[in-house]
């Protein structure tokens, strides 16, 4: 893959939700390309399709029309297990809520994606500890995930997203549950990751959070309304 080749290519992506009460066309043909190292914020009011596009980009769902190429490979028609592998190796998720596994330590949470990738226990631990150190929460490694604060939870979530060194970090309203001070802290971390060549796709409806991104894509009614790169 050459450096300029796009990481994500969405070509006329459509998504219809079928239901007995009538089908609903959530995405009406999205064309979007994200290159390596970009920091894109996807914005839009609720019902605009931003969650749906994030689910498709994150290989959590398949489009009903169009093609999705990730690193040049068309994954539109992948099986559930193939998608699971993509999520494991290429995507690092940061969700708004319920980010960490209960009954599991901080270290265990960060190690978990590596468990599914069959990375040996010793290497797992080393890698996880290194990431936790980078994010300044190594001292919480053996705490249970429900014994740390909200800001720390999101830091651990960032650490877990980095565990497999994925192609993209997908953050779905990562600051939605945090007060503004902690929200900016997390955004600073995400911004810093981008400066280290991590590709970031951020879903948000808050302008001040979106302002951290270099490019803002606005959705409306299942279509792209605007796509602006900050100068």
């Amino acid at each position, binding site marked *: 893959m050459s450096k300029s080749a796009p990481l994500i290519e969405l070509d006329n992506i459509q998504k219809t939700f079928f239901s007995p009460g009538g089908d609903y066309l959530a995405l009406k043909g999205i064309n979007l390309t994200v290159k390596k190292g970009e920091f894109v914020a996807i914005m839009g009011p609720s019902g605009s399709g931003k969650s749906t596009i994030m*689910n498709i980009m*994150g290989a*959590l*769902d398949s489009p009903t029309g169009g093609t999705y190429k990730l690193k040049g490979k068309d994954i539109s028609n992948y099986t*559930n*297990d193939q998608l*699971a*592998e993509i*999520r*494991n*190796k290429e995507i690092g*998720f940061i*969700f708004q809520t*319920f*980010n960490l*596994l*209960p*009954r*599991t330590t901080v270290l265990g949470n960060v190690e*978990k*994606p590596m*468990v*599914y*990738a*069959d990375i040996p226990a010793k290497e797992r631990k080393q890698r996880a500890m290194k990431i936790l150190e980078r994010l300044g929460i190594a001292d919480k490694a053996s705490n249970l995930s429900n014994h740390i604060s909200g800001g720390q939870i999101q830091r651990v979530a960032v650490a*877990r997203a980095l565990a*497999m060194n994925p192609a993209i970090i997908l953050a779905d309203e990562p600051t939605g549950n945090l007060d503004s001070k902690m929200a900016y802290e997390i955004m600073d971390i995400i911004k810093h990751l981008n400066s280290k060549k991590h590709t970031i796709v951020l879903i948000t409806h808050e302008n001040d959070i979106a302002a951290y991104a270099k490019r803002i894509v606005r959705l409306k009614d299942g279509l792209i309304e605007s796509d602006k790169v900050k100068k």
Partner: protein
Amino acid sequence: MRFSEVLNSAQEALKGNRLRTALTMLGIIIGISSVILISSIGQGAVAFISEEFSSFGTNFFQITSGQGFIGAMVGGGNPITKEDANAIANESRIDNIESEAAFTFTTRKVSAGEEEDTYSIYGMTSSSQIILKPVILYGDFLSEVHDDGINSVTVIGVDVAEDLFGVDTNPVGESIRIDNSKYRVIGVTKSPGGFTGSFFNNAVNLPLETMAAKIIGNDAIQEIDVSVYDENQLNQTMDDVESFLRDRRDLDEDEESDFTLQSQADTLETIQNITGLLTAMVAAISAISLVVGGVGVMNIMLVTVTERTKEIGLLKAIGAKEQDILLQFLIESVTLSLVGGLIGVFIGLFGAFIIAQVVNIPFVISLVTVILAVSVSSLVGIIFGLYPARRAAKLHPIEALRHE
């Protein structure tokens, strides 16, 4: 994903809700422990009885009044008599018969000096020595001179001797008292093989006629034992003796015998049959209990899957495949039932051990039963865990993540 990782997360999940885990296991524990308990005790009883019998040898059979196994215990009908015993010895002309002996039995208070206790009193002829082969510790056994007329002599068991006269004392020449009559001790016996609880050790033996006249007051006997030379011909000899006794009693062809012949092998077989039947019955009841336990496991696993829907969504988002989720929940249900099964095995064996000590039978651990119990309990976990685990595995990641 490695097996040990799955095992770890199953362990964490089960520890997370100890009370629920324990209650779910209870059904399995009850099922498995009852099978283990009953089969261990049953086998212990059979082992005990086999050992008891083998100490007497297997070259003889018993004739008792009444019909069948139950009839033999309660007696009834036209009772067998001393004359029957004499006729078998003197008139039957069956070559294989080595010896015969008639027995009568009761319990009485026996005293010697200050000591007094209740013992089993047996009336027997001198010929019983040939059949039952008691070990003589002191003095002599009953001899032919004691068979006829009144002879107030007795041969007592080693435990009786110890109770009445003290440990390691030779009581030959001393007297014991039964129903205000004195009997001179002429010998002390022990059961062959020395198995505790064997009948010679605790018995007070009197000459048959003496006992009939002085204690029972009639000529009734309870049992005739017949020993044979050739053990391989035992069944043939039993048939011959049965025909002979039927002739003596003028029974018609179509009438059933009003007495019962039973060899040690027969008795052992009967007891084994009863034990086997009992074990099968308990196994059947336990199977029901295991199914109920299994349904309990399934129920809890379904609740667990629902409760942990969001968690399953998160695991899928970070790369868990369907089989990873399936395996995780399956291991949880198998762990539940397997650990339940192991606890059941432990409780069952512990209970059997206690009971074996109390009733004084050997404590038998059947490896086959234990392995079977453990396998069945894991199987229950697999069967009843499969549906909930599949349900978890098939969850759509987005719907699971959105679940409230």
